């Protein structure tokens, strides 16, 4: 089976004042086309670094990242990114912010078409009526929704998200999980989601990858065999609860605090 994203033996170290800081160590991740891959791991283990390598913002010291059969050497137009900090351009309206990637990726696109596309997405995430507001007039959750729209407005093949819901309260976060699920049902894309929320990884993911502590390796891969049309209630399903337990244990191991509880 051919994978859309193939991360093969990737190692990377940052150069710091105190010498090289190894962050990733022979990391291997495979994501089939259309799958949702959630990545969890201890804080500071190299998750953000992984997103920068997959998007081509950085190149690894060793190993290769292959996207749709081609090695990633620089950023591509077929990738969408949502960041933990949903920075919006304050001088643009929400609609203009969402349209921004189209100006780069499809400059030949008619403005009215671009607007219609952006409006469609804003409507899907429940931001209809806010398109002409400035980012400063929106709440954090609303800004994150808009940032999601911006990440997929150009219909990317791959969506990479770095803890996009990390700064939100629980209810808003669960709302956004469902928005995410609906977006994927409406227009399928392959997705890599970095998160520190295990419930989020099980609710959204088709597979959950647990990274070890720094330097990060693939420590554990969990296949989430739950139905695709999930509701929040599924997290109380015994199967999901078991998975959450397994992941919890794996994180404890990754943090180097194994044992004691069994």
């Amino acid at each position: 089976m051919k994978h859309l994203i193939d991360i093969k033996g990737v190692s990377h170290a940052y150069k710091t004042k105190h010498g090289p800081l190894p962050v990733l160590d022979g990391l291997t991740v495979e994501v089939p086309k259309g799958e949702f891959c959630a990545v969890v791991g201890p804080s500071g283990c190299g998750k953000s670094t992984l997103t920068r390598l997959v998007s081509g913002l950085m190149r690894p010291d060793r190993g290769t990242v292959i996207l749709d059969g081609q090695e990633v050497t620089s950023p591509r137009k077929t990738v969408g990114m949502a960041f933990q900090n949903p920075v919006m351009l304050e001088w643009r309206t929400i609609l203009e912010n969402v349209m921004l990637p189209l100006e780069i990726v499809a400059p030949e696109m008619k403005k009215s078409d671009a607007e219609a596309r952006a409006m469609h997405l804003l409507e899907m995430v429940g931001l209809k009526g806010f398109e002409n507001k400035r980012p400063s007039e929106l709440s954090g959750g609303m800004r994150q929704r808009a940032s999601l729209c911006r990440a997929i407005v150009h219909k990317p093949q791959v969506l990479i998200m770095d803890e996009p819901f990390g700064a939100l309260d629980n209810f808003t976060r669960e709302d956004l999980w469902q928005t995410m699920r609906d977006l994927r049902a409406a227009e399928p894309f392959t997705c890599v989601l970095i998160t520190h929320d295990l419930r989020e990884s099980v609710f959204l993911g088709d597979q959950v990858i647990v990274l070890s502590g720094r330097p990060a390796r693939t420590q554990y891969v969990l296949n989430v065999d739950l139905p695709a049309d999930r509701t929040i209630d599924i997290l109380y399903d015994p199967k999901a609860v078991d998975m959450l337990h397994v992941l919890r244990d794996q994180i404890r191991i990754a943090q180097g605090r194994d044992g004691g509880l069994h």
Partner: protein
Amino acid sequence: MERVQKIAVPLAAIIAFLALWELIVWANNWPNYVMASPSDLPAAYARFWNLFLVMGWQTLWRTILGLALAVVFGTLLGMIMGFSKLARDALYPLLVGFNAVPKATLVPVLALLFIGQHDFNTVLMAFLISFFPIAVSVGIGLSTLEPEYRDILAALGASKFTIFRKIALPKTLPEFFGALKVSVTLAFIGTNLVEIVSPHGRGLGALFKSGETNGDYPLMFAVLIALAFLGILLYYGVVALEKIFAGWAERAPG
């Protein structure tokens, strides 16, 4: 109501200031060759109104031209310093040193370099005195651009120039206009400095000097008031531009 208040309040303050001035001159019983009072001014304006128009225009266009040059040069310099740490390290001390030199000392230097080029010297001085704040603010604005902003477009493979045009440039506009408000006043000072000091100068500065030579105090004060008026005009011109181009940065009232 709010609009009326916006104009009426500062107007009342100006009238109060003039009244106080008049009162102090009257209470001290100063004759108008010691200190002119506001009531002396209308006569001076009536007598020299055409000179005020001609000279005022001279001062105005030289200031604006000098400032325009400062904007172009300062922005370019700021871009170089903003994007290259090497250029920043190299140029910063030089710029600070240049800025520290009192510009009055440059007047004779310029006068000797470009003898008789009064317009040119005046514009050059307005430019020299006013580009520094612009260069510094643009440089700092660009060099402190958060990587998150850059990454939005970098992740799509946008070129450095596109990132500059779509993100870095608009993002530094508020800082730019903050600096421009300082620069416009500086350019105005530079223009007047040359006008006053040059022999055979033109502009409101020269008019001031002729008032001084002739012992015409009401004329001198009339020029000062005219200068203040032009200064206000220029400043609020910049404020208007700021509202248009960087109005988004203004906080909602309250």
